């Protein structure tokens, strides 16, 4: 078994401790270890990974393996940042009695993901503190879309189920403010129910999954090359990151790697995606505290990046660029000069924008100590990405699990512990400066050569984890291949799914008028969450 020495050590220790209860272990990739074990051991292993190996639960998902193994399979994905490896614990859930113990009481990060499994697979959660519907709303009929015997194109009758009941918050002077799902701005749909007493928010209930469009089921109906285009439509502002994470997974099942030039171009595109989103967010945060001039400058800068994206890849959102085994389009000398010029000019103008925002004391006043997410809360909720780094969680897949060309460039990861809106903005600002450096380094050492490693039909019954540090945070795509170049399962994990509950925590004690800016400082993807 070709596996990282650190993971090998962990495996040996676990075998010593749990003996034959670890029924099988295999590592299709050196940094991806699978442990097959029994359902009863899931909790114990979780506790070991957290306490002993400083791991964290990065995902929980299921698959319907009743046809092959007569059971449902549940996977727990642990990221061991210090060992630079992933461990996937696989446990069977009997089909006659589809029940699994919930880990949510111990690991809050599992909350929504477990409930999603319950909704989509019909596996009942035992001991979950709030086992209500989430992915399929309360009025849906009893259907389990991700089971193999459910047809993707099923036309469900009009929904007649009960409406969602929110929790009551009582007390003298307490009232509730419902917002959404159709919001006042141009954003995605979700429902927020604020319970307030006077100005401060006592409690915020989130209700999402309004844009659930059956993406994971759709993956199972398409040929793998078509799935790349579907991956681009999981979260529009992370098109390239999601598509690349998916391509990584497929490349790992096929045992191929993209050629060096393609890996370098992928990094350029990922950084361009980071550039336009971060600058847009910085502008939007300024708007929400009524500093519109900064927003206008930020939008101008964002438009410049989008136009360069179009010049480089034919699409302003970098769509159509990703492909299996590499990238679709090469950049010629002219295009590369254009990109270098963009970085020069963007950096200069961005510095001016930063100075403009810094000089505006009213903005700083509104952003500092607003929407605080304390580090220990962030750690409990498993918050990752920008929000995690603003609340003391020092991690970044680009550094800890370098993919593509990131092992060839030098950069630092900005981390703060205050966890307020200001720090989430500053993380973006500092990451932009790092991005300029990364793009320059890649341009300097851009390898020559081919753009794609050919991938034929992907071998069936292989599993692989693809990952990318998108601008929002870590993106995982886990696939299980099927015959005829298709997928038996594709699990998509956008960082937003994990990060939404942070909003409920960060808003406590703040006033409703600050909600837009707090929400914007996280800027989570609804579509990436709901899928």
């Amino acid at each position: 078994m070709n596996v990282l020495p650190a993971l090998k050590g962990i495996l040996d220790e676990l075998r010593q401790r749990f003996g034959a209860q670890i029924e099988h272990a295999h590592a299709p990739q050196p940094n991806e270890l699978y442990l097959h074990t029994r359902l009863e051991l899931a909790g114990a292993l979780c506790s070991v990974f957290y306490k002993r190996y400083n791991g964290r639960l990065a995902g929980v998902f299921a698959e319907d393996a009743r046809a092959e193994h007569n059971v449902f399979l549940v996977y727990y994905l642990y990221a061991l940042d210090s060992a630079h490896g992933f461990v996937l614990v696989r446990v069977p859930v009997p089909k006659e009695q589809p029940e699994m113990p919930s880990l949510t009481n111990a690991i809050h990060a599992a909350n929504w993901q477990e409930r999603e499994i319950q909704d989509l697979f019909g596996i009942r959660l035992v001991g979950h503190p709030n086992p209500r519907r989430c992915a399929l709303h309360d009025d849906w009929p009893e259907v389990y879309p991700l089971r193999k015997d459910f047809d993707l194109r099923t036309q469900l009758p009009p929904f007649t189920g009960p409406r969602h009941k929110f929790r009551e918050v009582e007390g003298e002077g307490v009232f509730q403010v419902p917002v959404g799902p159709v919001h006042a701005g141009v954003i995605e749909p979700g429902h927020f129910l604020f319970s307030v007493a006077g100005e401060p928010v006592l409690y915020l209930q989130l209700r999402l999954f309004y844009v659930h469009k059956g993406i994971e089921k759709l993956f199972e109906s398409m040929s793998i090359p078509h799935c790349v285009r579907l991956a681009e439509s999981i979260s529009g502002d992370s098109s390239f990151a999601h598509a690349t994470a998916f391509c990584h997974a497929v490349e790992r099942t096929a045992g191929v790697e993209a050629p060096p030039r393609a890996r370098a171009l992928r990094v350029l595109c990922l950084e361009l995606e980071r550039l336009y989103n971060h600058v847009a967010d910085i502008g939007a945060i300024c708007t929400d505290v009524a500093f519109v001039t900064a927003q206008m400058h930020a939008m101008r800068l964002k438009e410049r990046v989008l136009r360069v994206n179009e010049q480089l890849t034919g699409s302003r959102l970098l769509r159509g660029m990703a492909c299996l085994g590499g990238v679709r389009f090469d950049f010629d000398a002219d295009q590369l000069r254009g990109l270098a010029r963009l970085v020069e000019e963007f950096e200069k103008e961005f510095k001016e924008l930063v100075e403009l925002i810094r000089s505006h004391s009213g903005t700083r006043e509104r952003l500092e100590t607003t929407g605080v997410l304390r580090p220990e809360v962030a750690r409990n909720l498993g918050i990752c990405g920008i929000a995690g780094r603003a609340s003391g969680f020092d991690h970044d897949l680009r550094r800890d699990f370098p993919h593509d060309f990131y092992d060839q460039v030098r950069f630092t990861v900005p981390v703060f512990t205050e966890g307020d809106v200001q720090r989430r903005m500053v993380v973006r600002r500092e990451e932009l400066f790092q991005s300029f450096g990364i793009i320059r380094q890649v341009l300097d050492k851009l390898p020559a050569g081919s753009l794609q490693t050919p991938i034929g039909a992907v071998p069936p019954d292989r599993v692989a984890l693809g990952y990318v540090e998108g601008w929002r945070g870590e993106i995982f795509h886990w696939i299980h291949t099927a015959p005829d170049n298709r997928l038996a399962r594709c699990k998509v994990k956008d960082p937003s799914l994990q990060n939404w509950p942070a909003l409920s925590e960060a808003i406590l004690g703040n006033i409703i008028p600050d909600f837009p800016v707090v929400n914007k400082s996280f800027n989570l993807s609804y579509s990436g969450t709901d899928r």
Partner: protein
Amino acid sequence: MFEILRQSLKTGVVTTSYPQTPPEVSSRARGKPDIDWPNWTDARPAAAICPTGAISYQDLSGQRVARLDLAKCIFCGLCADVDPAIRMTNVCECAACLRDDLVTSAAYSLKTDGTHHRRGSPPSVTKARPGELSPAQRQSLEGIGQRIQERAGQLFGRSLHIRQVDAGSCNGCEVEIVGLNSPIYDIERFGIHFVASPRHADMLLVTGPVTRNMELALRKTYDAMPAPRLVVAVGACGCSGGIFGQNYASLGGVDQVIPVDVYIPGCPPNPHALLHGILLATGKRTERQSGSEKPRP
């Protein structure tokens, strides 16, 4: 304060002069695919590689009807990679008032090896008729922007109010719609602005395939608007369901739920394409002023 002014003055005016001038898109941009219909000999490779079924064909008793449906096209350009008869243009102004206007089809005779050839010359092509702007309209100072401003002015006191609803999109369309408020596209120069409530709106700009979870919210938003009202479906998903199509959680295009006046193809449509579609819709305003609204499906 001085710094704010200095920066603004230094930046100057950055707003595009579209639609007086053509859209500022790169020559490399992928817009509408252009099929060489008379010389097209095989629709099968393009149809097989198309991820959304925008290119399709039907064989029946020695005859083949091939179709290009712009409402489904995500402009990925994969068809052009495999078929020399297809070329990606950078044309982004594709909006149309009728769903059928986005479909082009041609009939061919089928050969035994599965390829096809034209019957007589040229093959009977039913062309898509997107609402294109003529060069005359564009160049003239009395161009479409001003024309629309006048029309919208007559009807809405020089302003058109838009309420945007995401009924299930991936957020890609929203990234571009937000761009309409940027100083580059500055939609307010047409007297058009985005409002927070459907009760204040003349136009509903809807993105995404309509999900089952958003169906009710979309209907309620539509019902909350005062008549007369316009609906614009945005993007491949809004026009047809796009790559998601119809499934257990998605109802498909916006017109499956509420009547649509203008379809704007694209994945996502860029801000020029959005402006083009919105202006097209307001131009239609006067035609529909006296008529009754389409019945609800």
